[in-house]
């Protein structure tokens, strides 16, 4: 019975911390588990999360109280355990530790399964180890209290039901406490470990925890706390690893629904064991997630953790935009959109973009939140942000028919919510005692859950709801755009000339803003349009006074061109609604063409402007078309091939649409009937209407035919061939693309990325004569006037002298060395002589003897 009393005691111990425990349930348990050890084991396993948790509080309790009477029981139990001899090494030591080893440790050993999974014990051991390492013990304790409250009823109900189908879990459950047996030993050794080993250990521990989590998140959910505490480690490397592995774990275990906070009422109602378990799981998950996010947000401020923290947040936002605390994540990520760190900024942009693109993940709610946050951010920073932060808007997608009708849109969402709530509330209303009913309910509940899950996964959003969200998003978007435009208008006048050259100098957001306006131009509300156009007109540098130099405008050429483009896009997409005169934009473009500089400004913008303003417009005013034709032809003569081909494509289009302008292809010496107000062409005119271009001849094309680039020259001759056709005919199209495509095709980037072609290696064999081709004759003449004879003689002789001097020197040196060494040899000689003498005398002596 020791086992029973042990378990009882455990319950008692536990009871001390949380409130009361209904005794009758315990009795039930006893009845059920009395005979069958195996069953008890399963039981134990079912309560595992709770038990594992308990041991800590119990530890403390035991350490504090050290109840003697229970020691007896324990000894009994221990003896029995020894007899069974399932464990060999670890136990005796633990006995020595005495007080530290509490009954809870012993508990699992009652079961026989402990043996089976011995190798797994390590995992738990190390887990415990961290438990001891970490500093936030109290916090854990506090957490524990809460979870116990939640857990106990759950465990009880489980016992009641006696679900015995979870045999698999047993192993992992039992091993955990067992591992703790070793923990204390290890604790002693721990201090001896060097920091490096500690690091390695922690790494391994993290890996193990993570693996366990992924294997069975339900039962191991508690390890999240341990991982969190690891990420609090002083060692920054460990902390980073902790953050990253926590992210990996969360990524996998975050459910596809949002976890709702339980209401008081819900909490007070008794629920089934399973539900309790789930609730506990969810509760722990959300608590840890929150703690994790708080940690990330706080670490984000530390430069060392900046990148890691932001990376984790971005990735979390990407994987779980539907989950709780999305708002916090979004706020941080949006804040970092204009970070000065390129990597961070890129990550955030990607995260937000994927948020916009994969709206299915969060039903568009996150989109609107993000857009609003960005709007606030822009407002807060007075439009001085990195362009990327606005650039992400380009990834937004709206339905075409948005804004058509808005009847009865409000209905859907609450309904849905209700449904969802119902799902949650079902278990709550279950009568606690009625088992059968419970089962039935369970089945129906499961079914509904599956339904809800399905819906949650597929995220089929009601079209009206969707429309509502999109509308809100759109209005936030345009609010941002208009803010930026207004800001640019008000500040551009005060801008100094110095900033003139650098594009986007003090309006960093203008370019992406214009781009966005262009893209979403069809969605702009008609009411705003008049104002928008006048705004753009101002920005594009147009002024009513003709004498003013256009250069006064502080925006760069690209930006001004973009303004023209946007104006036209807006105008075109709302053709019926808008009655605006866009003539001024043509004048702007006409002048801006001359201001364009290949390396400073973006050629694509120019090509785009040509495309939008000239190429896509069906019918042009004849005078205007003529003026542009002439200017583009002149332009093509002074700019690179990519710009030239864009200009020529436009020019050709203009000539095709305006057959009267084809007169410019011919040199009509009589002056022509078409020459209008201005009889003579003035290339420097700022107004296309006053340039008198109709009176000019497109002589440029004759030179462009000699252009080095084959596509430009063939285009020029193609255009020239129009002169021979009658006005309704068009020449054979050779390049059927718009100016922008033509520009891109010929741009240097494209050309250099093309694979280089092999050059032919054959030439007509033709051997050249001996005449010189490169060297000029006067250079060659110099070669023939040979050296002056006297000078030559003198030089040769001095050469000889030097050589002789050198050889003489060498000879003398050799002789000197020779002599010197000979003298030196004399000493040697003397020595030898002496030796000889000695030897001789010695010999003499010997002889004498």
């Amino acid at each position, binding site marked *: 019975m020791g086992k029973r009393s042990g378990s009882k005691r455990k319950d008692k111990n536990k009871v001390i911390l949380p409130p009361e425990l209904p005794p009758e349930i315990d009795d039930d348990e006893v009845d059920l588990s009395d005979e069958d050890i195996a069953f008890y084991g399963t039981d134990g396993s079912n309560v595992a999360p709770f038990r594992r948790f308990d041991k800590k509080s119990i530890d403390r309790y035991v350490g504090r109280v050290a109840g003697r009477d229970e020691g007896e029981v324990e000894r009994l139990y221990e003896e029995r355990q020894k007899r069974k001899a399932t464990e060999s090494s670890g136990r005796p030591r633990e006995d020595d530790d005495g007080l530290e080893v509490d009954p809870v440790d012993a508990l699992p050993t009652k079961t026989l399964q402990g043996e089976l999974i011995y190798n797994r014990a390590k995992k738990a051991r190390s887990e415990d180890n961290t438990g001891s390492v970490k500093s936030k013990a109290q916090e854990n304790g506090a957490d524990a209290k809460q979870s116990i409250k939640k857990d106990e009823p759950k465990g009880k109900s489980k016992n009641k039901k006696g679900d015995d189908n979870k045999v698999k879990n047993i192993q992992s459950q039992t091993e955990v406490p067992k591992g703790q047996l070793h923990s204390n030993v290890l604790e002693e050794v721990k201090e001896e470990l060097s920091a490096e080993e500690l690091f390695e250990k922690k790494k391994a521990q993290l890996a193990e925890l993570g693996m366990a989590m992924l294997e069975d998140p339900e039962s191991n959910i508690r390890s999240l706390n341990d991982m969190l505490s690891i990420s609090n480690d002083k060692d920054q490397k460990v902390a980073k690893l902790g953050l990253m592995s926590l992210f990996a774990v969360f990524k996998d275990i975050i459910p596809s629904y949002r976890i709702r906070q339980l209401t008081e009422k819900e909490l007070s109602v008794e629920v089934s064991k399973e539900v309790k378990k789930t609730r506990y799981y969810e509760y722990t998950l959300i608590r840890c997630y929150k703690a994790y996010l708080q940690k990330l947000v706080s670490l984000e401020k530390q430069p060392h953790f900046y990148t890691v923290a932001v990376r984790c947040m971005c990735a979390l936002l990407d994987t779980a935009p539907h989950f709780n605390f999305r708002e916090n994540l979004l706020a941080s990520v949006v804040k970092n959109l204009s970070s000065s760190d390129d990597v961070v900024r890129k990550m955030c942009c990607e995260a937000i973009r994927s948020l916009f693109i994969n709206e299915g993940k969060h039903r568009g709610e996150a989109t609107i939140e993000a857009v609003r946050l960005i709007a606030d951010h822009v407002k807060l920073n007075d439009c001085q942000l990195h362009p990327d932060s606005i650039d992400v808007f380009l990834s937004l997608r709206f339905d075409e028919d948005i804004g058509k009708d808005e009847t009865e849109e409000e209905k859907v969402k609450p309904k849905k919510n209700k449904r969802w709530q119902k799902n949650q509330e079902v278990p709550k209303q279950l009568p606690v005692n009625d088992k059968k009913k419970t089962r039935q309910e369970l089945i129906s509940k499961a079914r509904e859950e599956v339904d809800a899950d399905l819906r949650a996964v597929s995220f089929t959003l009601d079209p009206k709801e969707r429309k509502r969200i999109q509308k809100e998003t759109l209005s936030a978007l345009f609010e941002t755009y208009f803010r930026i435009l207004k800001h640019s208008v008000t500040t551009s006048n005060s801008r100094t000339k110095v900033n003139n050259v650098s594009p986007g100098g003090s309006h960093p957001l203008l370019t992406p803003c214009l781009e966005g306006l262009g893209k979403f131009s069809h969605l702009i509300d008609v009411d705003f349009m008049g104002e928008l156009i006048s705004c753009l007109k101002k920005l594009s540098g147009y002024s009513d006074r003709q004498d003013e130099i256009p250069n006064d405008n502080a925006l760069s050429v690209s930006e001004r061109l973009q303004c023209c483009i946007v104006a036209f896009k807006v105008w075109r997409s709302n053709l019926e609604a808008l009655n605006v005169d866009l003539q001024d934009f043509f004048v702007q473009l006409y002048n801006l063409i001359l201001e364009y500089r290949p390396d400073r400004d973006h050629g694509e913008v120019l090509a785009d402007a040509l495309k939008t303003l000239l190429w896509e417009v069906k019918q042009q005013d004849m005078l205007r078309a003529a003026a542009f034709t002439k200017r583009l032809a002149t332009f093509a003569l002074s700019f690179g091939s990519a710009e030239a081909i864009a200009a020529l494509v436009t020019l050709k289009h203009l000539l095709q649409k305006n057959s009267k302008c084809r007169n410019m292809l011919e040199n009509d010496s009589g002056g022509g009937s078409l020459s209008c107000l201005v009889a003579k062409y003035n290339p420097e005119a700022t107004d296309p209407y006053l340039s008198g271009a109709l009176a000019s001849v497109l002589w440029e094309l004759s030179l462009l035919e000699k252009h080095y680039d084959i596509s430009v020259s063939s285009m020029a001759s193609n255009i020239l061939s129009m002169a021979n056709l009658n006005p309704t005919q068009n020449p054979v199209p050779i390049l059927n693309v718009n100016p922008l495509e033509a520009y891109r095709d010929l741009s240097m980037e494209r050309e250099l990325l093309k694979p*280089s072609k092999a050059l032919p290696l054959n030439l007509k064999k033709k051997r050249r004569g001996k005449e010189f081709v*490169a060297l000029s004759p006067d250079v060659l003449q110099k070669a023939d006037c040979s050296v002056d004879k006297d000078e030559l003689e003198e030089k040769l002789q001095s050469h000889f002298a030097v050589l002789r001097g050198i050889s003489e020197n060498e000879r003398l040196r050799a002789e000197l060395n020779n002599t010197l060494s000979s003298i030196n040899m004399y000493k040697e000689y003397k020595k030898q002589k002496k030796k000889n003498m000695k030897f001789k005398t010695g010999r003499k002596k010997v002889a004498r003897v």
Partner: protein
Amino acid sequence: MAKKLGKKARKFARKNLQSAAKRNRKIRNQFNHRRGPRRGESLPPTLLTSAPLFALPVRARLQGGLIESLLELVSGGSAGREDGDEDVPQRVHDSTMVTNDEDATLIHGLEFPEDDAELDADLSDSDGYLSEDPGCPYYSDSEDEKADKDCIMEDGLDRQNDDMNRDIKKQKKKLKKLLDKDPEFANFLEKWQSELESYRSNKEDSDEDGMDSMDDDDDSNDGNSPNAKVLKSKTISEWCLLVSKDPKSPALRNLLNAFRDACRYGVHSDGLSMQRFQNARVFYQIITFVLSESDNVFRALLEIQDDANKGKIMNLRNSKKWQTVDPLLKSYLRNSLDLLSQLTDNKILAFVLTRLRASVVLFSAYPSTSSRLVKILFRLWASGDQSLSLSAFLMIREVSSLLPDCLDLCLTKSYNTYLGSTKLVNDRNTKHIYFLIDCLVELYSLDVQKSYERAVTSVEQLNAILRQAFKTKEKEDLRKIDNWQYISCVNLWVRFLCCHYKDYNLHPLFSEVLQVIRGVAHLFRGTRYLPLRLRLVQMLNDLSTCSQMFYPIPSLLFDCLEFREVSQKEQTQRTKINFSSLLKVPKNLLKSRDFQEECVLSAIQVLSAHFAQWSYHVSFPEVATIPLFLLKRLHEQTTIESLHRPIKRLIDQVTENKDFIQRKREVVSFSPNDKASVDSFLQEEKFSRNASFTRFYASVAENCQTKGRKTL
């Protein structure tokens, strides 16, 4: 000491400090006289000829001597490579890229692979002493004995020699005393000396010096050069007379022997040849006479004409006549080469080269000698001296055109030498580099088909480097373009194209080069790279002129014509900026007046070249429209007074020409699509070259020339 210098340093010296290299050679001669015979020579010729079967590195070693390399292996590499001056370059042969020098990191594979493993197969042919006809007179009367020392200049060495002489006398006295004191010592000393001698001679066999091919086979010939008769001025004169009278005279042999000794004078100080020359005049007589006359003499002996080519010589080789002349000719040619490698004075070298040029065709009989000649020639060609370079080049050209086998070698070597010498460009050597380019183009126009293939390879390399840099945009890759070697290489092919575009179908190469130029201009934008850009624009102008194709030059010049702020503070010190030796402007000068000035002036120059090219074209007014617009604005805005006048002048000239063309085209009746008429428009005026703009451009060009000369 040359030996002590690191290998790298020596290589650097060889490449860049020609004069230092020469001095080194001189010094080395002073110390190497005791070196043993060249090992390669003592090897049986069969071994040498079978060498191509060896792996390449081994072959390279063989050239340096097999024993040497063996020794090197044994002694850990210290014995062998002690002098690398003319050493066999340690080339790594690779199919695509060759990095010849360890220190040539900047070459990055632009060079052509050089096959340096040609063997001196006939180096072992004895060309030494020619047996003399005893009938030739030797004058031993000492009529000019007193003039013996007259021309020896008093220099440091002589003083040193005098000192040493005194020393020797003193020490000798000492020794004598010792000897007197102890007569037995004399015996001892003798024994010791003979021991030393035998030890030395043993050692000499194994103590290989790795001498270059220049002073090889010296000692080996000492043995059969018993003639130690002193040559007097009178003797030489007599011989010269005899030879000029009759080329077949036996005196020729004597004379050539004397020439041989003269050419090697100083190589062996202890050789008997040292004493053969009574004085400097004799030396001079021999050298000048042999060099100036021997070509005629040999041609007379072989009975060949001036226009003889290689085939003829090869035919002659089997004739009987050849057998008799062969040793003489060989001796003459090889000794002249020795002389070339000995001499240090540019003028004498030029003289020798000019003389030798006449006999280039004779080299064809001796391939190894001619390859040696080529090596020497390229060294001299790359040297900075103008006249020497020119004469060396003329000789190279002669060699390449007369000896077809050498053409490949010459093309490769010239290209690599050119690249090597463009590593550093400064104000002083820009002119020399232009000269080198011209020479290269000359050489490459000898056989355009062959050169075209090389050009294609080289341009493809350039293109590959460009693409790589474009892809990665990494600093290291960009550095491969932003250097003189790359740009000079492009410049070379532009020049090549300009010379041959009209006569050959070079269009594929043309567009490839054009792409490289455009790519580089695109890759390096910004004000700092304006000098580089202007250089590219000049190239484009050249290409445009030669091909008569239109290139929109202004698109690359907007940066120059844009008004920029000038910092006012650094008016005190004016730094001279010369764009011809710059690729990138130092940052501190970016805002300086001088830089701005230079920018605008250079832009005006290239722009007027562009205008001049199209100044007679019917659409000139349109060509000028946009640049004129910019020039006017610049004229209004610029604060640099000195720029007002040149800008205004260009504006006026362009406007005048514009009006002129406009007037002219108002009266014509053809349309732009009438190609023939457009082409013939104003052709007469173009040929008369009287239009004001043409004259203006001529003056601009001239101005630039004189300015350029001033800076050189």
